């Protein structure tokens, strides 16, 4: 065990106090899952189940710890030394960054089924009761009197999906006419009233502060919000065309090796594909691949034409470079 961890544990035990029996001290192996911001509740459900399953299968007690943050911030932290064994992100690019740095295998998307995305979602709308502005699709969002709330694409993967979805819609609508697409996007972005740095900040603005007519976020998230804050006050609108938002997972091989967790990490990710886990995920309003579960939850997920980033924008790196980097399309559209 690395010196720093020993130190950390002994000092922490000291700090927290002997009365508080720390599970971290009692157990041998510990798996660190670095994940995106809004997945805290999700993994708080999954991890104990996995721990129990592992003990049953292998007779060994393990603990899964979570680190949450903006998906990009998390990737950055891992590059700077955060010793996460696995990543469960909401953006393919953030895993690619790790792959470029040699922390994740090059062919990580082939390592697991469905491009290494155990679940997926899309971008949907949350509107206020009775949908007073009559918002049904992306082109309703460019109306003059509509105020839009979604997180800043510069700082949030969630925001990036929204931007790409709107672009994808416009691309179809105007048949690839760049000028019209840009006009559409410019109007769309001008309707944004608050650019919070993250998805949850945007939610707070929309719900708690009562700002805007529509909140755009992951389908899973808007459904969760609606059940959290009252199904009577809000409505979920899933537009007929939207974007495929994959939630990629990968083993951070050097870290897992160093921590002696390679087997545990791999099993943990595979565990996400099991039927009961998939059911749990669907319960959190994520779309899943397991057929039995898909059938079971068919009512919950309307049929939607899901555009793939690769199809519309070539590839993730291309989309990032053209649209989001400093001086890219986003900056151009927002310039005055």
């Amino acid at each position, binding site marked *: 065990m690395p010196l720093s*961890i020993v130190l950390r544990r002994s000092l922490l035990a000291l700090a*927290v106090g002997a009365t*508080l029996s720390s599970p971290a001290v009692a157990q041998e192996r510990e798996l660190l899952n670095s994940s995106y911001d809004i997945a805290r509740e999700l993994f708080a459900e999954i991890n104990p189940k996995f721990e129990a399953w592992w003990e049953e299968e292998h007779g060994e007690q393990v603990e899964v710890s*979570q680190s949450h943050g903006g998906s990009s911030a998390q990737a950055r932290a891992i590059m*700077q030394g955060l010793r996460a064994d696995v990543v469960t992100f909401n953006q393919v690019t953030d895993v690619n960054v790790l792959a470029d740095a040699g922390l994740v295998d090059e062919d990580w998307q082939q390592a697991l089924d469905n491009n290494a995305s155990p679940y997926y979602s899309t971008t949907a709308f949350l509107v206020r009761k009775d949908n007073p502005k009559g918002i049904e699709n992306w082109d309703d969002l460019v109306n003059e009197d509509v105020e839009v709330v979604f997180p800043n694409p510069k700082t949030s993967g969630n925001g990036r999906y929204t931007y790409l979805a709107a672009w994808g819609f416009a691309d179809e609508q105007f048949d690839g006419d760049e000028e019209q697409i840009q006009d559409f996007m410019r109007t769309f972005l001008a309707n944004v009233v608050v650019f919070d740095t993250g998805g949850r900040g945007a939610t707070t603005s929309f719900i708690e502060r009562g700002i805007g007519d529509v909140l755009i976020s992951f389908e899973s998230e808007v459904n969760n919000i609606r059940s959290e804050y009252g199904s009577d006050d809000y409505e979920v609108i899933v537009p007929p065309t939207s974007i495929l938002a994959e939630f990629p997972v990968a083993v951070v091989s050097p870290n897992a090796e160093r921590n002696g967790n390679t087997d545990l990490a791999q099993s943990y990710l595979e565990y996400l594909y099991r039927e009961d886990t998939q059911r749990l995920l669907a319960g959190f309003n994520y779309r899943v691949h397991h057929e039995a579960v898909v059938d079971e939850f068919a009512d919950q997920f309307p049929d939607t034409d899901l555009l793939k980033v690769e199809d519309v924008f070539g590839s993730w790196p291309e989309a990032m470079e053209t649209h989001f980097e400093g001086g890219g399309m986003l900056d151009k559209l927002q310039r005055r």
Partner: protein
Amino acid sequence: MQRIGDAPLVRRLLITAAVLLSGLFLLLPLVAIFAQAFSQGVSVFWSNVSDYYTLHAIGLTLMIALLTIPVCLVFGVALAWLVTRFDFPGRRLLQTLIDIPFAVSPVVAGLIYLLLYGRNGWIGGWLDSYDIQLMFAWPGILMVTIFVTCPFVARELIPLMQAQGSREEEAAVTLGASGWTTFRRVTLPNIRWALLYGIILTNARAVGEFGAVSVVSGAIRGQTNTLPLHLEQLYQDYNAVGAFACAALLALIALLTLAAKAGLEWRAARREAFA
């Protein structure tokens, strides 16, 4: 005795304005924190506070504060002694340098430590080869906390020690006292209240630092999550009550700090009155 602005009307007007504005601007936020924290009753507040991860965050936060204080204390006293008791080229520069943490945005403070001690940094990389990890572990949190809090003790001591001058110490030296004895028996009793005040400020900041710590912590629940980070996570998880419960704890620490400070000032004033 009359002074400028003693006319009853002016006086009443100014006091009212000051009290009203501070009430709205400073007191109301404080009230709001506790109102939100207890908005769903004491039991909900309590269950949020006694949550394992919250307790762990409290423990970690207090530990960081406890480790930060002695370091800042030694540095603050040494620097104050240096710049108030000796004259040497670069004295003013040294005094400006300790203001750096005030000038650096906390996020940047975290960033510069990450760049140096992270795995890609030149010190961090070297340490990594010996399997020593500073960032995303408590030593990193401690380091940036020391960075942002180090000016407080020195800044409290310097003006006081400058005003007091060094005559008393010189007297002690002429009477044959050693350096350590001079400091302990002559200097320390004169500066102890300022010192304590500096410690209180250091503690308040160490407990509450957010920006810098968030960059280097990794925010692992139950491991590297400090109370302010935990608060932010709860806020993000739609657990506003939980977030404000943490906020209330931090505000409580702030209030204790203020009370301790007011107590010290009261004591000092009383000592002066009877001196």
